[in-house]
């Protein structure tokens, strides 16, 4: 079981500079736990304290934003591609409801 994971610039400090790494897991949740075993701390940059994906990152499985496919419970299979990108967002509002 092998899943390619594309890592954004800001998280490459965890992967020794690698743009892309391999991991395994039957769900996104399992994959991130597997990755954390190799790249200590990376899961904490993607998953917030409340146990959901951080609103500052977008995670895609085969081009599909996992917000629409069950978040961390999104199922994975051999050969899937996972892409992590920082959300590009902001604005003059101090408190935001749109940051999802």
């Amino acid at each position, binding site marked *: 079981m092998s899943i390619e994971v594309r890592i*954004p*610039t*800001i998280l490459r400090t965890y992967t020794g500079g690698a743009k892309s790494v391999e991991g395994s897991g039957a769900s996104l949740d399992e994959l991130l736990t597997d990755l954390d075993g190799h790249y200590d701390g990376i899961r904490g940059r993607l998953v917030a304290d409340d146990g959901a994906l951080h609103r*500052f990152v*977008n995670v*895609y499985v085969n*081009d599909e*934003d996992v*917000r629409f496919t069950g978040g961390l419970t999104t199922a994975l299979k051999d050969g899937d591609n996972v*892409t992590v*990108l*920082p*959300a*590009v*967002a*902001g*604005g*003059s*509002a*101090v408190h*935001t409801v*749109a*940051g999802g």
Partner: protein
Amino acid sequence: MLEIPQALYDAMVAHARRDHPDEACGVITGVGGRPARLLEMENAARSPTFYEFDSAALLALYRDMDDRDEEPYVIYHSHTATEAYPSRTDIAYASEPGAHYVLVSTREELGDAAELRSYRIVDGEVTEEPVRVTDENPGTGRSPA
């Protein structure tokens, strides 16, 4: 320091004015530390106080930059009622330490004057930098396919 061709400077200001009172946002890609293409992005939030690149458009943008060996050179957006200084929200979201974060203000009291300022935002720390406008020709790309 941000070095930016006049045409790209003007394009960011024009985009900000066109989308006013909503916040405008976009990217100038770069190759080897030099600006390449300005890509106006749709503000998925369509809001006067918040901007967000559409999730699918964001993925397409990064794929496209990857294929061309480009990096985000400038990430810009407008503030339509406040000054061109990063808000707490801007700082919280900023996650391209190599990019110049450009803010354009279109607040009313500026009238016809443009206010465009540039910052580095690294680990939550904001550093303003001078903006030098140059007269070289940038690339002419407009939007990701």
